[in-house]
């Protein structure tokens, strides 16, 4: 009897131990329900139509103001792409007539304020972070920047030399080199696919810069984001000091997913080996996905999380890094925009492991693999994504920037409210469908940045090019 009891006990214990499921260690911890309310930004409209969105936080006497002007690189038309970067640097460092050259920046520095100007694809953004007590002075300085613009020839010349050197150095980092080359291919025929050159930079004139600057001044779609210890009603009157100026403008290009798909299908040799003398190669693949406001958005988010976007719990990290020690970093990332989207998969590995890693990266996104994903894996990814949701709101600046982004992307009004529910609705069938449509390796452009000798192991599918060669 005693022996039987012992066996039963051991069997029970064995069953119990082998029945351990991932996460059981903390299963006994009681989680209290969490009270959470969506932060509610306030909206105002200035007399000139500029919208002001604000989420004040007066814990510290420091404020942040960001003026988003909806005119950017997308409005370049057929002009040289180098105009944008040269204008960005020259404008900031040229100051104004009252505060010429870097004097303006120095005035901000005296106050401990941080002023910056950025000219991106969609927008031009003027930001300033300042101590609340200096608000009036900060507004004076920004007004001077806006109303007495100065594009100083000497500054333009300094910035031209500096940007030229950046162009010469741009192939130092294998990752940024690889990503640049992928974008050149995928965004061909669009402004996003244009790359700066020394010749292009040298041919840009001060008149080109002034013309584009005037067009930015003429844009009337503007949104001001205010966070920290700032008062929206004050800014409503300040904005009068930054008037929209009359002037002509260029129509914006709109990149559509179809253009990217066309580009991907036109690439004859899909694979490129970009020669660089490194001990660790950069391997990457890029493809197109639909725009942000597309029914497939949620399923792509979940699948991307499972494959490469979910850090240590993603297949890429598990199979390439943890199980084989082949890379320090491996993963994937999506970029959803208003009218298009892209996805890329990447890894860095010692040159001799490139074929193995590339094959693994491709195998893990084959339809056959995705069709074998299990319900519990899907559930885990959904729980992870929905539980992280609260961190979208832990910083007021982030809250406002997200709100603006979702609005720019034409997302539904209840997007955030419905986000978790829509993620939870994703099924294994959805994963199979979006996997086949957007993740399939046959639809992706592949590049490897590494030494020439890799060509021997990668085979004929790869065309060897130099970092500054054409990607076509």
């Amino acid at each position, binding site marked *: 009897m005693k022996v039987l009891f012992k066996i039963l006990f051991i069997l029970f214990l064995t069953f119990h131990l082998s029945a*351990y499921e*991932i*996460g059981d*260690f903390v299963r006994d*911890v*009681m*989680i209290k329900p*969490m009270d*959470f309310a969506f932060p509610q930004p306030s909206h105002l409209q200035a007399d000139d139509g500029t919208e002001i969105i604000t989420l004040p*936080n*007066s*814990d*510290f*006497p*420091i404020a942040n103001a960001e003026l988003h002007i909806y005119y950017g690189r997308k409005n370049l038309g057929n002009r040289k792409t180098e105009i944008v970067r040269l204008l960005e640097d020259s404008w900031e*460092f040229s100051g104004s007539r009252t505060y010429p*050259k*870097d004097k303006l*920046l*120095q005035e901000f*520095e*005296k106050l*401990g*304020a*941080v002023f910056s100007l950025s000219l991106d694809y969609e927008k031009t953004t003027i930001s300033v*972070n300042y101590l*609340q007590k200096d608000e009036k002075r900060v507004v004076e300085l920004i007004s001077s920047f806006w109303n007495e613009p100065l594009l100083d020839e000497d500054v333009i010349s*300094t910035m031209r*030399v500096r940007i030229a*050197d*950046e162009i*010469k*150095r741009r192939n*130092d980092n294998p990752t940024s080199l690889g990503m640049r080359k992928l974008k050149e291919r995928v965004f061909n025929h669009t402004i996003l696919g244009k790359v700066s050159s020394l010749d292009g930079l040298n041919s840009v004139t001060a008149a080109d810069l002034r013309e584009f600057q005037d067009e930015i001044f003429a844009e009337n779609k503007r949104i001001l984001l205010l966070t*920290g210890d700032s008062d929206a009603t004050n800014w409503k009157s300040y904005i009068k000091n930054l008037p929209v100026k009359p002037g002509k403008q260029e129509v914006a290009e709109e990149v559509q997913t179809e253009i990217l798909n066309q580009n991907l299908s036109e690439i004859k040799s899909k694979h490129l080996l970009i020669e660089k003398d490194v*001990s*660790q190669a950069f391997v990457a693949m890029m493809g197109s996905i639909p725009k942000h406001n597309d029914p497939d958005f949620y399923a792509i988010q979940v699948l991307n999380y499972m494959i490469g976007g979910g*850090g*240590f*719990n993603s297949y890429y*990290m*598990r199979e390439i*890094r*943890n*199980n*084989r*020690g*082949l*890379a*320090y970093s491996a993963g994937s990332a999506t970029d959803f925009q208003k009218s298009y989207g892209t996805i890329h998969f990447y890894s*860095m590995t*010692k040159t001799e492991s490139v074929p193995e890693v590339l094959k693994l990266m491709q195998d893990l996104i084959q339809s056959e693999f995705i069709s074998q994903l299990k319900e519990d894996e899907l559930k*885990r990814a959904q729980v*992870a994504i929905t*539980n*992280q949701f*609260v*961190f979208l709101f*832990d*910083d007021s600046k982030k809250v406002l920037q997200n709100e603006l982004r979702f609005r720019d992307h034409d997302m539904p009004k209840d997007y955030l409210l419905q986000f978790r529910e829509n993620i939870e609705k994703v099924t294994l069938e959805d994963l199979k469908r979006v996997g086949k449509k957007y993740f399939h390796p046959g639809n992706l452009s592949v590049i490897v940045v590494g030494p020439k000798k890799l060509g021997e192991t990668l085979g004929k599918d790869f065309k060897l090019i130099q970092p500054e060669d054409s990607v076509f």
Partner: protein
Amino acid sequence: MSKLRTFFLSLFLISFPAFAEPNFFSTSEKLFSEKIRTVRLENGLTVILMKRGTSPTVALYIKFLVGAVDETPEQAGTAHLLEHMLFKGTRNVGTINFEKESKYQTQIEVWGTKLDNLKLEARSYRDRGISIPEQLTKDIETFDRRLRNLILLQDEFILKNEDSFIYEQNGEVGFNAYTSQDVTNYQIQLPSNRLEIWAKIESDRLKNPVLREYYTERDVVIEERRMRTDDSGAGVLRERFFSVAFESHPYRKPVIGYSEGLPFLKIDETKRFFQENYTPNRMVISIVGDVDFEQTEKLIRKYFSDLKKGNTRPPYKIEEKQYLGEKRFKVLHPSSEQMMMGWIKPPYPHKDNAVFDVLSNLLTTGAGSKLNQRLVLIDKTVNSVGSANGYPGERYKNFFTLFIKPQSGADVSLIEAAIWEELNLIREKGVAKEDLEKIKNQMISEFLRNMDDNGAIADSLSYYELLYGSWNQLFSQYTAIQNVTSEDIQKVIGTYLSKDLVVVGNLVDTRKLGK
């Protein structure tokens, strides 16, 4: 209006327009004290809790006073490898049955160590130009096969990344760690109702670690070194710079270790390093955000009180002492030219350290800084210039360092000469009052900007508590900065920034040499 804001506003009204007044940080410290609770457990563990913000989230940082500086040359890279290994689970996490798994873990440790020894033996033959005996090659193959089989057998029992999985399911953000010369840090942000999950996992990580998957993870670290150092011009220059700059002190070793040593770091040694250094008397936890003081202290006591107290570490004998005379080197790498210049100096809380903080700002922060004006805007010989005070660590004597990216083809000797000229100018003529006020204003706003992030606050509080014995040294350091005068800066340049103490390193682009 919050109490915090009332305080700051009144302070500004009092101090305006001479905003950069020295009481700002000492008074801020009092305000912080009201928001902070410090708990010290019997075993020596210090816990700092700070309540702030409106989001129902917390930043959780665990820091240990152990880093690369605490390794012997043979152990170079061990502190960092150990940081990786502590994510590999415990007797309770990362396994479906540790009892069954453990026999494979033991075998792997034995055979892995033997294999490393054989490979070292083979390397020794190679280095001496002697052909490797056939038997040794066969043994390496056999041991390698055996090890791989054992790893496969152990894999049956391993639940990969279970800690990461648990945190992910509980909404983590930023689950990560870093190792520096001085400290090792483990960090995460969680919804505040998941605090006990964190306490249970992290205390278990310290009580029952299992260094499983050691040999695979060691390969991952080798890949990390390739990425951060071997294929990076800045990484190679930095590594060479400190190996030349320090002659005896362990700050001369890179945190990640050496490419020739990493493949042989021993598991036994890594375990011993853990046991000797990861003790509560060298550990600080900081929790910032939506914190309930009473409940959090209760949780901490429940999970961390039984950590065993460690021994006090004797002071190091080695102190960096150098003969006078400049040190100058070139390092060749296929990447664009870069330059580093540095001078040895005392660490915080030495009074001169704060002077270097101000000097760093004066020289390279913002458009109006002296070197930016001279090198980037006037001479146009440099793309960018930066500086760091307290490099590569802050526990011992360290370096004040300049980082320069010259324009392609610029004459680096002219750049160096211009830097000496600017330093001499400051030494002879001093710093204008408005320049000093500007710098101090910048430092106050920078401080306030950093204080708007739970993670940044948790990182700072735990760092100052660990290195300097109290979190409020953060404020003392800023107060010291506010008291720096022009004469202090002139004196420091004269004392430390001499040509007899300088280290100058240049990275030369091999592509231009045709190599």
